């Protein structure tokens, strides 16, 4: 017996046994909340993340391995990689989800999210896809103001 083995197996058990089991519970919670008109997205996405815990850890390991282990910039680069992944990979995927939800809302006149009509869905999709552009625009404005007010 060793602490290393115990800790490793405890982590594996939590991430690969318990979380996937609880994913079903999270989905059930999401459905119950949806039926009552409450926000359900946390339970829904939580269920998905519970099924993908190992994959999420592998993703973070990939972000942290962008530089050598003794490079002082390794943490900064790992955060940059994480932000890049969220904004340029996840957000466009989320845009597709919002376009689908917007289209369905428009076609059926049903609201899939208690706060959102079709206009909000399409607006959100556009914002998701324009995220990098907005960041560049903000940087441009800041650059224009470097000289100060004259």
């Amino acid at each position, binding site marked *: *017996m*060793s*602490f*290393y*083995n*115990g*800790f*490793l197996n*405890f*982590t*594996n058990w*939590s*991430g690969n046994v318990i*979380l996937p089991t609880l994913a079903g519970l*999270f989905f059930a*919670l999401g459905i119950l909340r949806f039926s009552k008109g409450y926000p359900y997205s*946390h*339970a829904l*996405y*939580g*269920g998905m*993340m*519970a099924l993908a*815990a190992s994959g*999420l*850890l592998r993703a*973070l*390991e990939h*972000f*942290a391995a962008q*530089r050598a*282990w*003794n*490079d*002082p*910039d*390794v*943490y*900064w680069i*790992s*955060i940059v990689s*994480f932000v890049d992944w969220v904004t340029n990979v996840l957000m466009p995927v989320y845009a597709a989800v919002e376009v689908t939800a917007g289209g369905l809302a428009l076609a059926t006149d049903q609201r899939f999210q208690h706060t959102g009509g079709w206009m909000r869905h399409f607006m959100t999709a556009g914002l998701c896809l324009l995220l990098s552009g907005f960041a560049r625009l903000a940087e441009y404005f800041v650059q224009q103001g470097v000289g100060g007010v004259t």
Partner: protein
Amino acid sequence: MQTPQLLNDIINVLLLLAPAAAVICLVLGGISLRREGGGITFVLGGGFSKWMFWCVVFLTLQPLLTWFSSFGVGVPLPGGGINASWLASFESDITSFVNNFILGKLVTTLAAYFVLRAILDAAAGDAFLPSVVAALFLLGAQTTLNLLSSWNTGTQYATVDVLDSAWTYLATTVMPIAAGLAIVGAIFNFVAQRPMMRLVAVALALLSVSGIWYLVVAMAS
């Protein structure tokens, strides 16, 4: 003047009891893990660190004593065994008690109590992780002791060498596994609509502890 035999025997007894003292420090360190766990964090520099430090000191006591020679103080360690039979018996009994009673039996029982405590912690709405980690640490006490002993270089820097190796082991072996637990915690927080970005940032930090160390070194230089 020749050192009296009784004095040599007492020195031998104390030196031979150092590994037993290291075992006791290790067990007390494991218990401190539970006592000082503040939620999901552990207090570095608290009781656990203190007991682990003394554990390392006891394991590397003989190499550490060679420092006195460099100060100009001769420390001739007596060779051979313990001549006085009652002192030899005393040393043997204490060592046997620590290895067979404490390390062999008591530690497992303590770990079992910590597992029970983890369940009670969860029932009370407190974090159960410190109790689980303490139980795992106590169950692996013998292996941890062997690991610490394997890092003993036997030089006058042996104490620091062992502490260095322990840091490297913690940063490169244990912390990446802790990153997995941080992800699990982040998912639970997300579902419960509690802040989760902190745990994502912590997971990234745990995966790049060495890089952060070099960052701090670069900042200081």
